[in-house]
């Protein structure tokens, strides 16, 4: 899907991991690394996107993702507008395209979009004016690429080389856009082994195309893993004949200290949040020494700063300058 790249292969939109090269993913991680120190400065801003307007366009409720996008944009010195469409225009019968055209007429430079339909970010990217960038903040079951990249960032900070890692993703793969993006990113970065551990009701029929080892037993699935990623179990899955009960799910797939023993001794535990304590994992693990869940949240800001600035600077004179030294620019900005 070359829709998200310009003719020079640089990021124009950030829609899905699928279709991006390994080099580009590493570039995003490196760029994020340069931003990771910005919040530690006394002035938490860099002037990279000064004068730009970024619209957070959320058709679905979100707290974490929206606020970290907002923070990221503000730390890049952009003007941010938050719009929760969930209950306004679409209810009045306005089409997605009309909503978009209206906002575009307000001269926004970037839309950060979350929408309940898979493929909506692609759809919007195909219809916006050429100077507008789209960042996918989650589309249906399809993709959540910034979440996946912040997870990769977190893994890289703890584990360095992807080639030797064994990563297990546990939970609802069927409905999870996070899992799809994580799997694509892990595979593109050359991860040694990617496993999913889930009952068959939460596994998509076409899982053979994902490039994962499927396990149904948590104990065998966790054996020898370096990274354990828990997925959120949506409450509504309990009613739709997907699972019999939270209790049985927790007994079979919930992460506890005891079950963690099968993983490598230095294995880290991740979760995109928000956690259902006592369903996906117990509090001992969530708050335990192996949990990197809160680091994920902070890394989310750095990753979002990286993709926003990269997408915004593609194809311009600034891009070259930017490619030369994100680190130096970041520093200069924070010193200012």
């Amino acid at each position, binding site marked *: 899907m070359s829709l998200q790249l310009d003719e020079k292969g640089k990021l124009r939109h950030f829609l899905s991991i699928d279709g991006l090269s390994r080099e580009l993913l590493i570039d995003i991680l490196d760029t994020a690394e340069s931003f990771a120190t910005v919040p530690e400065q006394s002035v938490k801003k860099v002037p990279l996107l000064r004068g730009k307007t970024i619209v957070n366009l959320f058709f679905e409720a979100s707290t974490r993702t929206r606020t970290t996008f907002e923070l990221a944009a503000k730390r890049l010195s952009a003007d941010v507008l938050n719009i929760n469409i969930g209950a306004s225009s679409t209810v009045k019968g306005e089409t997605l395209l009309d909503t978009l055209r209206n906002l575009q007429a307000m001269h926004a430079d970037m839309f950060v979009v979350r929408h309940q339909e898979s493929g909506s970010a692609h*759809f919007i990217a195909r219809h916006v004016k050429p100077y507008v960038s789209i960042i996918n903040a989650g589309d249906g079951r399809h993709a959540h690429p910034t979440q996946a990249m912040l997870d990769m960032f977190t893994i890289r900070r703890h584990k360095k080389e992807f080639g030797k890692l064994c990563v297990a993703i546990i939970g609802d793969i069927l409905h999870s856009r996070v899992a799809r993006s994580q799997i694509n990113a892990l595979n593109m970065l050359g991860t040694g082994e990617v496993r999913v551990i889930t009952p068959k009701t939460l596994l998509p029929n076409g899982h053979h195309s994902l490039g994962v080892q499927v396990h149904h037993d948590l104990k065998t699935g966790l054996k020898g893993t370096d990274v354990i990623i828990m997925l959120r179990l949506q409450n509504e899955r309990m009613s739709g004949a997907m699972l019999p009960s939270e209790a049985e799910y927790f007994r079979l797939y919930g992460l506890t200290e005891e079950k963690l023993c099968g993983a490598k001794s230095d294995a880290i535990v991740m979760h995109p949040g928000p956690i259902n304590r006592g369903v996906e994992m117990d509090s001992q693990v969530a708050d335990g020494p192996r949990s990197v869940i809160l680091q994920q949240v902070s890394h989310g800001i750095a990753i979002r700063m990286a993709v926003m600035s990269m997408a915004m600077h593609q194809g311009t004179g600034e891009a070259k300058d930017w490619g030369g030294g994100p680190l130096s620019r970041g520093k200069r900005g924070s010193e200012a």
Partner: protein
Amino acid sequence: MRILIKNGLVIDPANNIHRQENIYIEAGRIVALGSKPDGFKPQKEIDASDKIVCPGLVDLCARMREPGDEQKADITSETKAAAASGITTLCHPPDTQPIIDTPAVAELIYRQSQQAGYATVLPIGALTKQLNGQELSEMATLQDAGCIGVANIRPINDTNVLRRALEYAATFNITVFLTPQDAWLAQDGCAHDGPVATQLGLPGIPASAETSVVAKVIALVEEIGVRVHFLHLSTARAAQMIGRAQYDGHKISCDVCAHQLFLTEMDLDDYNSNCHVIPPLRSQRDKEGLRETLSKNIISCITSDHQPHEADAKNMPFGATEPGISSLETLLPLTLKLVEEGVVSLPKAIARLTSGPAKVLGLDSGTLTCGEQADICIFDPEKIWTFNDKDIVSRGHNTPFIDWQFKGKVTHTLHTGRIVYEQKNESKKKKHG
């Protein structure tokens, strides 16, 4: 009007004719094939040299959006598109607004098509009232009002209602058209439950949504003996099951949409909403299996399942778009492509568009038999052309086949002995010649 179609290669699969012949038409009927009737003086001659003359095509399922959805299309616009595509008979499924569950709606459709005059439109009545899957419709009354059969279109979840409906239809020898899709298994799916849907994050419709209904209906047909036609198969497995039931002597027939023989789930890549169809585009293996069962005559008809839409209906994220393809104008071109690709012979291909569907409908049309209504399609089999958006006659421009190259193009269509379509540049050429 007396018309002579001369020097054409006449292919009439029902009568096993495949030779160069002249066709003589008078008062709306074919009066002779080959030798000229005494004293026949044509008022118009159509030179069909190097062309193929076949029966007018019969399409088992085409939505014309009238009544109820005239913002998308209407009977006049779509029968005109049918005429330009060599189609002279179309069946209209009952999911209009209001639904075809009263004689009044059936009569309205019939009257509108008569007035337009491009093609015969045969309404298919609803199998249950309001297509609600709960109460039987007045099938016998609908039959008397001109409905060619009854159809469910929407799933019937209560198997007992389905059984009673089939029994009641069998009482009056009414053909029942069924779209086999289990609502519970299909849920809110919009794509084949396979690798592509998994990658794109689209809710899937498993193949079992189709096969489980086909199996259930076959079991009921075995008890009841009703004539059932399955509309629009998408899985190879369902076709095999129907083949077995046919072998066992049951009155079951089925069709496939032309697009299912060319597109697969892979075409959904990039969320092309023009490939959003129900039943969904399935796997490569299904496509191959459907082609095979088509060549074996288990699938006896190719349909368009024409569903014209206004542009807005397709201009949304994939899952939010309305399913369906505007497909009248690609029905013959795609079928001829099957011949080009060696799937079926030319006479077989024509049979799937003419005598095959006519037999399902219990009609005498779909042939060039003397004395029959002169519904005729003439096409140039060597003409290579590209399908362009600007050339679409239908009001629906929603098709994934734009820019496809086809070989074989309709030059004339006759309906009840009248020329309802004549290719423009062709007539110019004639004048020059």
